[in-house]
Each structure stands twice: as structure tokens, then as C-alpha cells.
């Protein structure tokens, strides 16, 4: 198919799926309300005398609230500007996360050309493919896990340095897979033709002329990001309230079974409360939120493992004073493909 023939398909994807319809706006309002509350609570806490609250906890809290403000502001800006800008936005985030990932993992001189391919070819290519919408699903779903994963060891081999070969290859593959491939499934949600549980097009009531109003993919993406972030908060909260049994002290000393279970249950509950923003319906939005919570938890644990192996606390400290991009999106990376595939398989017309 020629590129000219692809253009209409591409433009069709840009269209109606990401309208900020009334439900999306309500969801946005809820998020901004929570964030505003968090902001004022944080400010109030900071003014408290030091004896009443742990200053380190307050500082973490304020930093997190600030990071979420940025995250949601950027996401809203992207959605207002359209599909392509949202994809570009996630592409930039991926790029930065990969940068942090590779900076932290030692590579050898012989990996230079391979890294150039990874940064300059594979990362943009993945997002260009996602930009074409679900039409390109069969390509963007295999490009990195199959072709890039085969290309990387071959290119490293050609560079001619056999020392710790498998280890070096695995590092680059893991970075590309987690930071780029996985995260690219989040904007890919915008390209789906959503249906409800019965397989009919997802609509949210009818307009004045009795035409059905289709639901907006933007609200589903928003729902997803919100679930992942809230799950982080709930886990942290439950760990502080009840946490006794640390899951893997050497990997992450603050993740407890109580936090994990409490967090997942709370996320499921909120997911059900927000089911009106999704095509999942009341019954399925709970389990889906639960799976997202599970995947997000797995992501945080995995990234903690990598960080401990490299002996750094946060990806950001390596680079500057604050926590890096990868620290904020680790759970998002793992949850994105799971959420995308569940939505695509059960709640969309698989074009």
C-alpha cells in the first residue's frame, strides 16, 4: 500500500475518538479536584511544626503531587491538541525514560552503533506506527519484540566485542521493551474502535436528534492513567497504615503484602465507581482495574530490582536532584500493554 493511501486512514484516526465529551470532562474535573486537594493538603502539611509529621514523608508527598500535576497537565494538553500530539508526547516520555535506563546500565564501546539504532530508529518508528492507529496493530505489535530484538544482538555481534555479550544485549532489549514498546500501548488506546461488553458500538446516550453519541477514547486513556497512579498512592497508603509483611526486603523495603492487596482492592473499588467513563460497565471495570493494579505493582517491583542491581535509589538521582521520569512511569509501562490488550480483545471491533 502506498503512503498516499495511508493518509486518509491516518486522518480518520485523528478524528472523533478523542473528543473531550462531557463524561471525559467530568473525569478530568474529578482528577483536577483530587490534585488540587492534594496540593493544598501538601501546603498545609508543610506549614506544620516538624514534630507532628515526618518531613521526609511530606516532601515525598509534595513531590509526587507535583509530578502528577505535570503528568495530567501534559496529558490534557496532548488530548486537546489531538491524537498525533498525544502520541508524540508519549514518544518523548519514552525517549527520556530510555535515556535514563541506558545511562544507568553500563554498556561497552562496541554497543554504540546499536544504541544509536535504538534511540534514533526504533523508538521513533514504534511511535510512528502507533500514530497510524489500530490499522497498524499487526506491525507495531511485533516490530520491537521480534525484529528489533533480533537486530540488536546481530548488530552487537557485528561490532565485534564478545565480552559479556548476552548481558549487554539483554540490557538494550529490556530498555527498549519496557520504556518504548510497553509505554506505546497507552496512546494506542486512542486508536481503538470501542464497543461495550455485548459487542455493539460504545455509545453514551443520544443527542437531540436521537443520534447515538459515541464514547470518547480519551476518557478510557484517562481512566487507565488514573487507575495506575491511584494504585501507587493506595499501595503507599495501605503500606503505611497496615504494612507488616515486606514482600522482598532486598528489592524494595517499602512494598508490603498489605499495601499490595489493600491497594489493588481500593483501585478496583474506584475503578467500579468510575465505570461510567469507560465501555466496561460496572461488572468489568472492577476486574480490569484490578488487573491494571497487579501489572502496575509488577512494574514497580521489576524496576526496583533493576535499580537495586545497579545500586541507585532513583533513576533521577543519577542525573539530577529529583526522581526521574522512569521512577514515575514504571508502573504505567507494565500496565499499558495489559490494559490495551484487554480493551482491544473484549471491548473493541478488532479491525
Amino acid at each position, binding site marked *: 500500500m502506498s503512503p498516499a493511501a495511508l493518509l486518509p486512514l491516518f486522518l480518520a484516526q485523528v478524528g472523533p475518538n478523542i473528543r473531550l465529551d462531557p463524561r471525559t470532562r467530568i473525569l478530568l474535573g474529578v482528577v483536577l479536584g483530587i490534585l488540587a486537594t492534594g496540593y493544598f493538603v501538601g501546603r498545609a502539611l508543610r506549614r506544620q511544626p516538624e514534630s507532628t509529621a515526618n518531613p521526609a514523608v511530606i516532601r515525598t508527598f509534595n513531590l509526587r503531587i507535583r509530578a502528577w500535576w505535570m503528568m495530567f497537565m501534559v496529558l490534557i494538553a496532548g488530548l486537546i491538541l489531538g491524537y498525533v500530539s498525544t502520541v508524540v508526547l508519549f514518544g518523548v516520555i519514552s525517549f527520556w525514560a530510555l535515556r535514563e535506563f*541506558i*545511562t544507568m546500565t553500563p554498556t561497552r564501546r562496541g554497543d554504540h552503533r546499536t544504541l544509536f539504532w535504538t534511540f*534514533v530508529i526504533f523508538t521513533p518508528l514504534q511511535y510512528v506506527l502507533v500514530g497510524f492507529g489500530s490499522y497498524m496493530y499487526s506491525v507495531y505489535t511485533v516490530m520491537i519484540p521480534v525484529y528489533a530484538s533480533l537486530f540488536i544482538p546481530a548488530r552487537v555481534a557485528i561490532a565485534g566485542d564478545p565480552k559479556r555479550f548476552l548481558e549487554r544485549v539483554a540490557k538494550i532489549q529490556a530498555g527498549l521493551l519496557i520504556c518504548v514498546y510497553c509505554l506505546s500501548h497507552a496512546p494506542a488506546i486512542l486508536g481503538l474502535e470501542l464497543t461495550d461488553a455485548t459487542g455493539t458500538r460504545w455509545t453514551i446516550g443520544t443527542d437531540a436528534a436521537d443520534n447515538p453519541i459515541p464514547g470518547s477514547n480519551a476518557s478510557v486513556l484517562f481512566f487507565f492513567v488514573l487507575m495506575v497512579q491511584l494504585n501507587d498512592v493506595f499501595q503507599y497508603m495501605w503500606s503505611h497504615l497496615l504494612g507488616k509483611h515486606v514482600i522482598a526486603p532486598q528489592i524494595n523495603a517499602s512494598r508490603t503484602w498489605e499495601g499490595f492487596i489493600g491497594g489493588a482492592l481500593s483501585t478496583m473499588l474506584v475503578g467500579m465507581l468510575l465505570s461510567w467513563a469507560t465501555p466496561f460497565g460496572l461488572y468489568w471495570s472492577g476486574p480490569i482495574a484490578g488487573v491494571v493494579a497487579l501489572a502496575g505493582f509488577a512494574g514497580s517491583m521489576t524496576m526496583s530490582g533493576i535499580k537495586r542491581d545497579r545500586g541507585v535509589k532513583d533513576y533521577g538521582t543519577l542525573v539530577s536532584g529529583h526522581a526521574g521520569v522512569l521512577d514515575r512511569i514504571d508502573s504505567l509501562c507494565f500496565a499499558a500493554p495489559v490494559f490495551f490488550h484487554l480493551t482491544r480483545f473484549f471491548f473493541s471491533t478488532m479491525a
Partner: protein
Amino acid sequence: MNLTAPVLAAIGKLLSGATMRWHECQPDTCQRVYFANHTSHLDALVLWSSLPGEIRDLTRPVAAKDYWSKGRVRPYIARCFNAILIDRDEVKVHQSPVDLMIREIGTKYSLIVFPEGRRNTEDDLQDFKSGLYYLSKKRPDLELVPVYIDNVNRVLPRGEFLPVPLLSCITVGAPMWLEPKENKFDFLQRARNAVRRLKDI
């Protein structure tokens, strides 16, 4: 005022994602000699572009004439940097690199030098060339500021021409001076250790 310098600085910053850490030293427009380890062609660009704007305008990297005077692009970039080009192959008696540097900086400019002379491929620093010693003997008022540049050798290793945009880190240490009666060997050793020490901070 040409526009290329700020643009070049922005590219340098973007490419290297450099974080500047002023460790035991604050940015200042006084005359200084920043001396750093040398692992990549980008070192000078990255260090120069990471300096705050008003200091950057007063800071001139010292670069090798044989590399930076070839072709059309390199001399142009060297001019944007306001670089001082040093002839590495031919050192004349009355035209020694140190004399040239002192003449060029006057009482206004600071310098960026790489006393290892050539780009390093080993993990440890090479021995420093004696230029730094003679420079500070002739101009004892210059502050000598050690700088450690980390990770730029991964952005653009020796022998490569396409940079990979990783994140790098620049650490600036406490200024030092030539002590009275300190001999050349001791001084160069002390300077080298000052740079090496920043590696672990």
C-alpha cells in the same frame, strides 16, 4: 552577537542531557581555568554549553588546531565557541601555547583546558601535560577549577561520528592554585587527583 552560539549551546545540552553540579565552587565571572578529563570530542561543547550564559560568553575552550581547522564546519563551530586553537605539532619558542593562551584571555576571559592532551580511552586519567603548571606560574591569579565530565564518552566515543543522546554529568570541584615552591610534578599530580576525586562525589 551571533545566534549560533546559544543554538549550539542548546544542542549541546539537549544531546548530552548534562547535569551541572557545582560541588565546592560557585559559578562566577572571575578569570578561571576549568581543567577537565578528556574522553570525547564533545567534552568542550558539553562543558561550555552547561555553563551559565554570562559565564559562557567569557569562557574560551582551548582546542587542537589540527582537528578544528579542517574542513568548513569545524572552523565555524570553533569560531562560535570563541575557541583558542593550539598547534599541537609545532611548538615554537616565542609562540608557546601557554603564551598564546595568556595573550588571548587578557584580563577578561576564562579558559577550558584538557591537560591530558589527548582523548582518553582508559578508565583512569592519563598524566597531565605541563601546560597547566606554566600557565599558573605565569598567571598565579587565575583560579584553577577541576571539572570531571562523566558519561560524555558514551554519548560520542572516540572514533564514532553519530552521538547517542544519553545523560551525562559534570561535576565542578573546589578551585586550587599553585602553591609557593611547589614543583611541577607535585602540582600536576595534585591537579590530577583533584579531578579524579570528583569522580566519586
